[in-house]
């Protein structure tokens, strides 16, 4: 099967503006978008740059805009996209080269919600156990692989890059609702800000984008309610 990849290229050292470049590639319909990119990189144009690592939807490094929707290139089959494939870097983050964006602002927001266990109790002698029901409360948000598909598909984030973004909120949810963690109050106050959770306009783009099918808007709603219960 012959397909055309139309890729937004940009090398800040050479190019004034990003431009589209077309590549014709011979692929199997059951190949993934990433396989086609590899064929281009290895046999046609080695200057093409993109991130990928695990190639199995686990590391979250190859999020890109594929025909207008943020997806992981390693998780999408070519037969499900068609023979014209337009690829752009994810939005709202500075392009370093081609499909590689600067993830630092994204990770800075991730770090700001304190994504680690906060528990000052004396060290237990055995592991900290948790009931199945307690785990169920935040099970969905543990699945996040920090690919940034959600945050970079969020119009609130495009408008204002100071917005914490859905991914950091998902991570906050993962710790706030964990019964073993004692940092809930601290984190709730971190997200309780104009540029925190209250910039979420319930647009649902994040839910459409998430390759892990996390119900992000629901998680954000649970955080908003937790804040209300805390303050009212």
């Amino acid at each position, binding site marked *: 099967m012959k397909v055309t990849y139309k890729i937004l290229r940009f090398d800040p050292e050479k190019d004034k503006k990003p431009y589209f470049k077309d590549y014709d590639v011979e692929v199997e319909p059951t190949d993934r978008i990433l396989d086609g990119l590899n064929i281009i990189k290895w046999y046609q144009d080695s200057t093409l740059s993109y991130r990928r690592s695990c190639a199995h939807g686990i590391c979250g490094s190859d999020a890109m805009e594929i025909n207008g929707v943020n997806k992981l290139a390693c998780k999408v089959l070519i037969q499900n996209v068609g023979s014209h494939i337009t690829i752009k870097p994810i939005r709202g983050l500075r392009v370093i080269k081609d499909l590689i964006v600067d993830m630092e602002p994204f990770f800075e927001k991730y770090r700001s919600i304190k994504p680690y266990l906060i528990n000052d109790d004396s060290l237990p002698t055995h592991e900290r156990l948790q009931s199945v029901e307690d785990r169920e409360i935040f099970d969905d948000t543990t699945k996040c692989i920090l690919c940034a598909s959600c945050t970079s598909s969020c119009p*609130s984030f495009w408008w204002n890059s*100071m917005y914490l973004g859905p991914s950091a909120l998902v991570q906050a949810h993962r710790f706030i609702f964990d019964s073993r963690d004692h940092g809930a109050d601290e984190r709730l*106050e971190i997200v309780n*800000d*104009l*540029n*925190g959770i209250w910039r979420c306009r319930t647009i649902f783009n994040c839910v459409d984008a998430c390759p892990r099918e996390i119900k992000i808007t629901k998680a954000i709603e649970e955080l*908003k309610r937790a804040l209300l219960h805390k*303050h009212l």
Partner: protein
Amino acid sequence: MWKKTTFSVGGRAKPAGGFEMYSWYFMRISGVVLLLMALGHLFIMHVYFNVDEMVNWDGVGAAEFVKQRFEGIGWRAYDFILLTLALFHGLNGIKWLVDDYVHSKCWRLFLVSAIYTLAFIFYVVGSIFLFSYNA
């Protein structure tokens, strides 16, 4: 090089919080109440008493109707709540738009002040009319 950003306006380490949460909650509650009250208004004005039929083109019928309505405190209260919620729900919505789209400090200051000033003027004028209208 990426610029170091704090996600909090003005670089506060700890967000001030509070107001935005109440503003969000107000929008939820006022939205639901406004929907019910607007439907109630529609029902009373156009189904139960049909004002369109009352008006005999010189406006006398409608004026008479308003006069009767405003004799007791009940309708004034209803309209006052409607005024309060609709005004602040609407203007808060516009403030959210400014929050989303306007990043320049000067423009923000100007627009947000304009919104608060408008809210104040409309609220005062509306309330004066509602309570001083002499039936």
